[in-house]
């Protein structure tokens, strides 16, 4: 009988709280912990405005984006039997970004539900296309390669479309690397239910996915219909990745790293992996955002760049273990 995951989960959520507090206190100007507490308790003043008006929405967005991307990553890695899968490496984020940018350029300002719907549609389409490109069999190397090719096509179109519109240039970096600088509470309130729905889909499909991964026959014997399970899994990926792209652009590597750490902490078992990946993704996003704000004060590095700098070596490490491993 595997250990109960309750204790590790509790510890992880405590760490999320710590990182959250750090995200409120650190930034272009550091604010003392006492003042942060005061602001939360209802004090007024410039420090409180920064904490509540700017940093709180941003930290909340980081928790949400990190958790959602981590879930998308776990589901993708399990489905593809490929530890190198991640919504950005497989082109899913890029597909969502392309859909939203094309929408923005053709309709101008869009209502938020439409943005979310476009991101969702783009993510789903990208997931299907890349999966078809990679084909069946051993996708260890094919999936990241096909994903990189697909992502670079999407991103060059995004770049072209955005740059041809002089007014839209200020959002260029947001759509190229992802950033939390534009996250606000209204957007968060709209997208959190979408992301949560995705997480629920993932949890609901977890048992079915595991049975299918063992073998189709076993799945059938357990009363699992492959079509239903795959649809649910795709829904989970597209909802979580789409919601996070709609809020923060195509942020990478959380979906790659969080599941790897989660496996170390809670072992195998998809539902517990999902539950552990959410806080881990949140911690990664919070820490990366804080590093981005502190590293080159007074200007800041977008979270996407910080994550790429730390995530790319992690990818190389995982890839090395895979290529070297038993063949």
């Amino acid at each position, binding site marked *: 009988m595997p250990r109960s995951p309750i204790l590790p989960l509790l510890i992880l959520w405590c760490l999320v709280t710590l990182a959250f507090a750090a995200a409120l206190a650190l930034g272009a100007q550091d604010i003392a912990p006492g003042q942060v507490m005061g602001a939360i308790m209802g004090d007024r003043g410039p420090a409180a405005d920064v904490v509540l008006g700017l940093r709180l929405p941003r930290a909340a967005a980081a928790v949400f984006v990190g958790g959602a991307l981590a879930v998308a990553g776990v589901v993708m890695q399990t489905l593809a039997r490929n530890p190198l899968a991640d919504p950005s490496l497989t082109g899913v984020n890029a597909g969502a970004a392309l859909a939203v940018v094309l929408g923005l350029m053709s309709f101008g300002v869009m209502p938020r539900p439409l943005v979310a719907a476009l991101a969702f549609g783009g993510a789903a389409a990208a997931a299907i296309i890349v999966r078809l490109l990679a084909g069946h069999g051993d996708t260890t190397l094919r999936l990241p390669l096909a994903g990189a090719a697909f992502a670079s096509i999407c991103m060059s179109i995004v770049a072209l479309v955005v740059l041809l519109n002089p007014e839209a240039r200020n959002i260029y*970096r947001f759509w190229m690397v992802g950033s939390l600088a534009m996250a606000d509470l209204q957007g968060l309130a709209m997208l959190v239910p979408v992301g949560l729905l995705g997480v629920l889909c993932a949890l609901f499909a977890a048992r079915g996915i595991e049975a299918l991964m063992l073998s189709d026959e076993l799945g059938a014997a357990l009363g699992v219909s492959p079509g239903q399970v795959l649809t649910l899994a795709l829904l989970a990926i597209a909802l979580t990745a789409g919601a996070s792209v709609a809020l923060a652009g195509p942020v990478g590597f959380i979906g790659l790293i969080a599941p790897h750490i989660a496996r170390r902490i809670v072992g195998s078992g998809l539902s517990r992996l999902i539950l552990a990946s959410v806080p881990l993704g949140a911690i990664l996003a919070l820490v990366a955002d804080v590093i981005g704000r502190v590293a080159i004060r007074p200007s800041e590095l977008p979270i996407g760049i910080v994550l790429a700098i730390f995530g790319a070596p992690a990818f190389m490490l995982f890839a090395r273990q895979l290529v070297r491993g038993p063949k």
Partner: protein
Amino acid sequence: MRVALLIAVTLALALAALAIGRSWLAPQAVLAALADPEGTGRMIWGLRMPRLLVGLIAGAGLGLSGLVFQTLLRNPLASPDIIGITQSAAFGAVCAMMTGGAVMAGAWIGALAGTVVIGWLAWDRRSGISARAAVLQGLGLAILCSAATEALILRASDGNAGMAMTWLTGTLNGIGWPQVQQALWLLPLALPLLLSGRTLDRLELPDDLARALGVRVPQARIGLAALAALLTGGVVALTGPLGFVALAAGPLSRRLARGRPSPVLAALIGASFVTLADILARAISPAALLPTGLYTALIGAPILLIVLAAEFRRNRY
């Protein structure tokens, strides 16, 4: 014959590149202006000609180094822009720029370092350097170097995203005669590669066979890789990392040369590729002057997808 045809294509594209821009000229007008550098030809000789020349040299250099890396690793995906060498050269160049050093030297160091790192990461005691591992590790190195480059630029320029973008996509904007002069320094690097067709052809054979045919295999591999890396670095120092030129030129040239590696064809294809992308850049958005690298990526990415699909079908990955 094929070479003559490609030279004709390149010349035609070059003529078009001289004709197209903020003001369009008829081909006869271009030729007339070329003969009159002081009067009507001032714009062409002063602005469009250096841009064209650097574009041609950059494209040829990238095409050459792409073919060399692809041949050495026996894999059409293993071009310097996929395995991270272009990006590490760009990182080196930007580092040099920030510290006030010579940009070209920085790019050279970056390119050589990237090559060594990838070779080391993809090394396996049993089977030597594996192309699969090189491609996979290179994917990571490329992302890492691009992110690090962007971080450096944002730090130095107080968040000036426009500069970062230009340096990450590659552009021919702002090219003048001084850059042409620098580009000419690259010719000594390109010349041995242009003449290396026979060696490349033999290096594709199993190593012992190549040795029997008189190729000193390890020396030839290291020498060719170093030259190709330096050439990539030199081009990156001039124009930034023009994406996918190196990747696309190799497979296209092989198709024309019946599967054989042909450096001359690869150089010509690379040169016409960059010229075509630059024509597009100036024809589609003459006012915005978007970086040429955007268009090379736009044309090249579908070619990458086609190469990938063919590789997957052959079950090479």
